[in-house]
């Protein structure tokens, strides 16, 4: 019986984190992006500096009518938001937060194949946008869907290679194991991998500057053109959940997870701080850089990231073997 309670509790914590942290990142994006553009962002909702803006947005989305276009592939169209959102929840289940006041590791489920599992789940998340693009029955969405597919093909490889480099260095695929094996000098030897992983992750999430599939000015949000109300909100939430998973994975793989002073007690806080730091970088990249053209997106992946990732893997191999 205690095992069931334990499992339920872990699931609850993961779901709670899944509900809250993306909103925190979303709010951070609202405010940080605004200030980077010399604005103030939301100021009214909730009273204090618009802290409840996303809650208000959610309430608005719930009230909206759910429309399925006549030309849409109904089942695919309606399923797509769930396919986009749920994998990130699943991925979050296997990402460790770290020691919790000496009570053991705060994690949904410590899997031996944790890294493999999380990367697989993240790739499924992208399929949701692809389904939305192909199922909408709209030319803009279709082009957007094609671009999603191209981007997925290009960036999956460098991302997996960069992750593989860390797994090789740690000698394990378990995310907890990787953090335990982590040493500070990895920050240097795995730096190219870190950059490749982060950039490829941005592209995988179709975050600016890699948002050519969405490109609101030319493709009218691409795969999301026909979505409204709750389904659109789920895509939005998936985007921020994706940032959360990417940041958490970057933290765990490259930044040493909960490594830091007093990590036996407040390790989970260290992880959260690092995750938020990486999420801030994701937002910063969005504000600082203009969107890459479609050919530039693919050129960056194949001509820069893949060679760098391969070099990183070679370097790691040499270091591990030597």
């Amino acid at each position: 019986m205690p095992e069931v309670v334990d499992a339920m509790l872990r699931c609850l914590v993961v779901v709670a984190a899944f509900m809250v942290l993306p909103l925190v990142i979303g709010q951070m994006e609202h405010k940080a992006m605004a200030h980077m553009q010399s604005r103030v962002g939301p100021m009214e909702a909730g009273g204090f500096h618009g802290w409840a803006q996303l809650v208000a947005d959610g309430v608005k989305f719930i009230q909206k009518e759910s429309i399925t276009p006549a030309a849409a592939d109904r089942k695919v169209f309606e399923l797509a938001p769930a396919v986009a959102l749920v994998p990130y929840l699943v991925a979050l289940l296997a990402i460790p937060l770290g020691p919790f006041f000496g009570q053991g590791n705060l994690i949904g489920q410590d899997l031996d194949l944790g890294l493999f599992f999380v990367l697989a789940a993240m790739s499924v998340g992208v399929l949701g946008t692809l389904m939305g693009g192909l199922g909408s029955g709209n030319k803009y969405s279709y082009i957007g869907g094609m671009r999603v597919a191209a981007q997925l093909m290009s960036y999956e490889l460098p991302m997996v290679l960069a992750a593989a480099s860390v797994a090789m260095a740690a000698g394990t695929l378990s995310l907890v194991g990787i953090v335990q094996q982590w040493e500070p000098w990895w920050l240097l030897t795995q730096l190219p991998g870190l950059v490749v992983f982060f950039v490829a992750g941005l592209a995988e999430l179709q975050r600016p500057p890699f948002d050519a599939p969405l490109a609101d000015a030319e493709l009218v949000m691409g795969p999301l053109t026909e979505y409204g109300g709750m389904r659109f909100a789920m895509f939005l939430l998936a985007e921020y959940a994706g940032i959360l998973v990417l940041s958490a994975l970057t933290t765990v793989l490259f930044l040493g997870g909960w490594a830091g002073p007093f990590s036996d007690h407040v390790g989970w806080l260290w992880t959260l701080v690092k995750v938020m730091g990486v999420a801030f970088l994701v937002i910063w990249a969005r504000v600082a850089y203009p969107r890459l053209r479609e050919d530039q997106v693919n050129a960056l992946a194949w001509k820069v990231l893949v060679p760098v990732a391969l070099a990183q893997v070679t370097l790691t191999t040499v270091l591990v073997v030597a």
Partner: protein
Amino acid sequence: MSTYGKGLLQGLAVTWRNLTRRSVTAHYPDVEPDLPPRSRGVIALQEENCTSCMLCARECPSWCITIDSHKETIPATTEGGRDRSQNVLDTFDIDYSLCMYCSICIEVCPFDALHWSPEFAYAEGDILDLTHDMNRLREWMWTVPAPQALDAGAEPSKELAAYEAKKAQEDAG
């Protein structure tokens, strides 16, 4: 040394600078704006100065001024004097849904009956309410600020020069 990647760093630098500085946003409903002198908010009518000469209504490029008046006779105050007649306003409406704030009416008024007030918050739910009648226009007079003082070192106004020249002449003569 080539500057490869310099633009990427510049992008980060610019956004970071903005982030660490105060934003330039005007917090309008919470903080009243600091308007420059001679701001054109709303046109106020000094009804007593108006002679219904219709210059403003005729010069208005957007035809937003409606004037209606009648003549009243003022009986002669002295024995055997002539009765005088005076125009009295019945209607003086400015339709702010048409007004383009060009200030021609104010400049053309020979009797200083029209003035700019900096008040700008008179939005309405119904477009018909944007037509201000003369009572409402008269109320705006209370918000008209004193004329802006001249800048330091500016030429004194011609009216003042003329007045002083005349006064000097009178004193001498």
